[in-house]
């Protein structure tokens, strides 16, 4: 089970804390018992009546020096109580500490493993699952499981110990009464289990509703500019409030059911105490048990009531934890991206060859690219031009294996190696892909630029930034390269982000560079500066540029024109201009301004 996997490295400490928990439970029971027995059997007059003291108590009292001795030297008893209390305090402290050490190790491992797994999941998984939902699973479900392992399991242990101890002593007094008393335990437990199965659906529903509400809030916050620009705050409010109310009602109904469960539990255990009191009285009157035994039995039975009730509650909490475990297991059981067996790390400065590549994102959707074939010679620069949604980016994602090409949908080769046989890390390290919508990590600008490098120094970082025409811009910031960006930092403009992404890629000087419309938010002047610097620094890297600007593409060795997922034209600028095709049409439009 997945929990055991997460428990690696903390299980032993958990067990130690359970041992302390056992000790504390016993000590907690002993202290009050000493006091109670002292009163009932040593000080009280009732003790003088024959048969009012259970046989084992007589023996215990004799061992401690006899009734009279104890009665006259109560300070010894008090000292015993204090000793027990000190011991209990020490053990309780150790219990909490070991438990916390274990729990924190456990939760850390769980978080780390989850994060690691998420990192290793294929990109297609990321696009299929909602961010809000995944985060929900990684945060609140993790907390629920932590609570379960670190607190509820302890309660379970304590509860079971109390029940076992109480039942043990009760059997020693009277078997019939023990049977009557104990018969309630399975009733409550079975009832709890039945109930827990019933309410589980409710918890699942509530959880997914919370996920939905959470996503709505998330979307509203990320799309705040759109909301404002359209003046749609009221709509957003109404939508959120509706979902919120729905979620709330779901929980209120759930709590109602829970309350009914707790109440019926209370009723059952209340009845149990009542029946034992009555039966005990009857047995006493019929002389089946002595007065002392009656008193002892009733007090043990009282010891049973609370744990049995708690058991019901713990079990219902367990159902919540189980839902969470399933939700975490969903992530952990999703298959990670795997390299082919005997994956290779070939030299990447080779020709890139697409052979009859077709791809669709989902079963029901139409093909984004259809039967695409072309070759990019190593060391050349290739431009890709194509309409919106013509599959330009998809081709690059396929090349980078962000999406895996299914069987029978063609092949992509680098040199003579099918990219499916290349180690993913090797493939991606050697393909510098600058995304259309760049992503900044929270951290400083220098950290962002240097993220893919191998402990780069400031000089290298600045060099990359210079090529990306970013150095001057960064220096104009108050904190320069130490400017904090990303989630918590300053907001960069689209063009600045794109240039950061370019610099980021340049750090690793990959043999294949892909610019996926990465200069779209950059003005023409900067665009030109960057390309000029690149051409001086690219060395013999293969460069693939996706763009809508003819001026960006026209000097490429080869230009691939895509139309609705198919290759429409291939050739260099001059050759393409001779043809009466899409390229010429676009060229004519763009050159009109001059």
């Amino acid at each position, binding site marked *: 089970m997945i929990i055991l996997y997460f428990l690696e490295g903390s299980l032993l400490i958990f067990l130690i804390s359970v041992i302390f928990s056992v000790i504390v439970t016993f000590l907690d029971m002993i*202290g*009050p018992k000493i*006091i109670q027995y002292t009163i009932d059997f040593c*000080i009280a*007059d009732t003790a003088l009546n024959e048969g009012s003291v259970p046989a084992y108590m007589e023996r215990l009292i004799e061992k401690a020096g006899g009734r009279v001795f104890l*009665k006259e030297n*109560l300070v010894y*008893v008090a*000292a015993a*109580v*204090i000793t027990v209390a000190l011991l209990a305090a020490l053990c309780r*402290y150790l219990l*909490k500490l070991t438990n916390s*050490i274990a729990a*924190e190790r456990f939760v*850390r491992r769980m*978080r780390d493993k989850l*994060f690691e797994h*998420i*990192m290793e999941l294929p990109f297609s998984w*990321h696009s299929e699952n909602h*961010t809000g939902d*995944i985060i929900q699973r990684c945060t609140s479900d993790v907390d629920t499981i932590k609570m379960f392992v670190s607190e509820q399991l302890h309660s379970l242990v304590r509860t079971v110990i109390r029940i076992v101890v109480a039942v043990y002593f009760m059997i020693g007094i009277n078997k019939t009464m023990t049977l009557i008393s104990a018969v309630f335990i399975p009733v409550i437990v079975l009832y709890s289990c039945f109930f827990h199965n019933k309410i589980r659906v409710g918890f699942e529903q509530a959880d997914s509703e*919370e996920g939905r509400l959470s996503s709505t*809030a*998330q979307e*509203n916050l990320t799309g705040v*500019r759109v909301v*404002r620009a*359209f*003046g749609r*705050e009221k709509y957003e409010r109404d939508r959120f409030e509706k979902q*919120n109310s729905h979620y*709330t009602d779901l929980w209120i109904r759930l709590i*109602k059911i829970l309350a009914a469960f*707790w*109440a*019926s539990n209370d009723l059952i255990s209340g*009845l149990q105490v009542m029946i034992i009191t009555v039966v005990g*009285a009857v047995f006493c009157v019929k002389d089946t048990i002595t007065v002392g035994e009656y008193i002892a039995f009733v007090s043990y039975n009282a010891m049973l009531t609370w744990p049995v009730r708690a058991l019901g509650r713990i079990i219902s909490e367990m159902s919540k934890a189980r839902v969470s475990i399933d939700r975490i297991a969903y992530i952990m059981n999703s298959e990670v991206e795997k390299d082919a067996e005997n994956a290779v790390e070939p030299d990447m400065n080779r020709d890139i060859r697409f052979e009859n590549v077709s791809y669709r994102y989902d079963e*029901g*959707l*139409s093909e984004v690219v259809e039967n695409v074939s072309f070759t990019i010679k190593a060391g050349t620069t290739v431009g890709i031009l194509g*309409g919106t*949604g*013509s599959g330009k980016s998809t081709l690059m994602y396929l090349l*980078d294996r962000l999406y895996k090409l299914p069987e029978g949908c063609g092949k992509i080769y680098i040199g003579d190696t099918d990219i499916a046989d290349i180690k993913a890390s090797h493939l*991606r*390290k050697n393909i510098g*892909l600058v995304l259309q919508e760049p992503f900044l990590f929270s951290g400083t600008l220098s950290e962002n630029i240097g993220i*893919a490098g191998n402990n780069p120094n400031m000089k290298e970082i600045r060099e990359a930034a210079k090529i990306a025409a970013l150095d001057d811009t960064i220096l104009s910031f108050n904190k320069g390269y130490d400017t904090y960006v990303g*989630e*918590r930092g*300053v907001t960069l403009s*689209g063009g600045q982000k794109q240039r950061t992404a370019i610099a980021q890629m340049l750090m690793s000087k990959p043999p294949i560079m892909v610019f996926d419309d990465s200069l*779209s*938010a950059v003005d*023409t002047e900067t665009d*030109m500066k960057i390309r000029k610097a690149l051409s001086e620094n690219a060395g013999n890297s293969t460069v693939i540029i996706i763009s809508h600007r003819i001026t960006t593409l026209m000097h490429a060795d080869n230009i691939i024109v895509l139309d609705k997922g198919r290759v429409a034209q291939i050739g260099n600028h001059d050759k393409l201009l001779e043809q009466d095709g899409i390229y010429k049409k676009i060229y004519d439009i763009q050159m009109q*301004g001059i």
Partner: protein
Amino acid sequence: MKEENNVKLPFFGIPKLYTYIKPYLPKIILMVSLGVISSLFDSVFPIFNRFALDNFVAKKTLEGLPLFIVLYFVILIIQVVDNYVTCDLCGQVEMGMDRDLRNASFNHLQELSFDYFNRNNVGYIHARVMSDTGKIGVMVSWRMMDIIWNGAYIVWVLVMMLVMNVRLAAFVIVMVPVAAVIAMYFQKKLLVLNRKIREINSTITGNFNEGITGAKAIKSLVVEDKIKEDFEKDTEKMRRESVHSTHYSALFTSLITMLSSFALALVLWKGGNLTESGIIQIGTLSVFLSYALGLLEPVQNVIVTISEMIAVQVNVERLFRLLETESDVSDSIEVIEKYGDTFNPKKENWEPLIGDIEFKDVSFKYPDGDEYVLENFNLKVPKGTNVAIVGETGAGKSTLVNLVCRFFKPTKGQVLIDGKDAALRSQLWLHSNLGYVLQTPHLFSGSVRDNLKYGKPDATDEEIMGALRLVSAEDIVKKMEKGLDSDVGEDGDMLSTGEKQLLSFARAILADPRILILDEATSSIDTVTERAIQDAIVTVTKGRTSFVIAHRLSTIVDADIILVVRDGKITERGKHAELMKQKGYYYELFTRQFDERSFSLI
């Protein structure tokens, strides 16, 4: 013990929450009363036991047993019903408060200015709305009931003890201030530690967010290991701090429980001696001790509950920091009175927006910046004017637009709309007449139709298709499996950037705004489509005041006014021909853009 703990911290922040508690006051009062009754009944049950002992067992008779059973049963039923109702109420209060706080914070966010969103990340704000609220709900309901149940029981028992024997009770009561001092010391410590833990926790949530939303970038850069390493640093910090905090809370609980055991031992010893000397009856001592024994668990519960409530105060603080943040750009009371607020617009008082815009001596610096990006700026934009803003990346081209939209307010000067200071009318009035197409398009998850109707909820399918046709986006929708009903995915993930730009453009057009703003709205759109859009823009901007921020200068040559921005300042303005004649920066930009053929490419 409760009162002493509240000395430093004003009632767990409950007074702050009062506005939100108020609607539930009747329920809370009922809940509390039932809770007190419940704990009274709890202390009644031992009496039944004693009664059975004294009357049946001791007297060896079963006389009156049926009546005993009936009475016992009735009280049991009352108790059960009482508990049921209390839990049910508790749930209603918890979830109700939770809902109200979530609504309040969400709604407040709808009115906060962009400056707030620039300064706080989405993950952080999200946690305030989704998790702080829940924790506060629990505090006000269940935690409070825990205090009531246990507190009432403690009070009841203490009263019983005082009635029985003041001297003996004193031994127990004397422990209370000692416990209070200990509790206060630890509370202070724990509050600080918990705050730290929460902060790390939200960093971790942020990490998850980054790891998930940035998956594409992380994979293509192959930086999984580095990101993982950073993540593990944070989880390790979390682990260390949490254990450190537990160290204190464990010490705290252990000390307090030990203390109460001491009190018991003391009572046993002294009480036993008092019995010896005949000052008190043995029966009294027995009852007294059994009550004192029963005190241990509730005292422990109260302490645990209090430390939980201490932890929640952090959430109260944070949530209220959000709720009390005032918007930098807010409507004045007079404006709200006349035009209504964000959620209750008084549309009957809204004047039609004509579209004359004037910047009058406007100076502006961003709230987090210290340099003026605009100084004494004056510009008249009559109705229907097409204003183009050009300049280098990051030169501050969006600033003017932000001011027109009132996303920020001028530091000095005024922005006049139809001759009247924009601040004299409600933001919603302005925004309702605005069409803003952003460079990074944002779509909401849902169908294409829902997204397009965003600015005009009552749009018909014909109108929608019309807008799509205008921006040449008809094919995108036709290509999709379910047409207008197709899902666009989270943040429009199922579509390419260019497609998203087209859809958001269509969305803006559909809203039929008086003022249209295109912020590099076509940067990721292919040429053929852009060409078609250019024509669309001409059609759409006719009669409307429009601001176009663009890189491709060819798209703005026909603009009525071109503003050239350099290093955050407007350096040139005029028509294309005039600017070309000036041979300034614009000229340089323009010629260079079309003079690329001579330049040898990579």
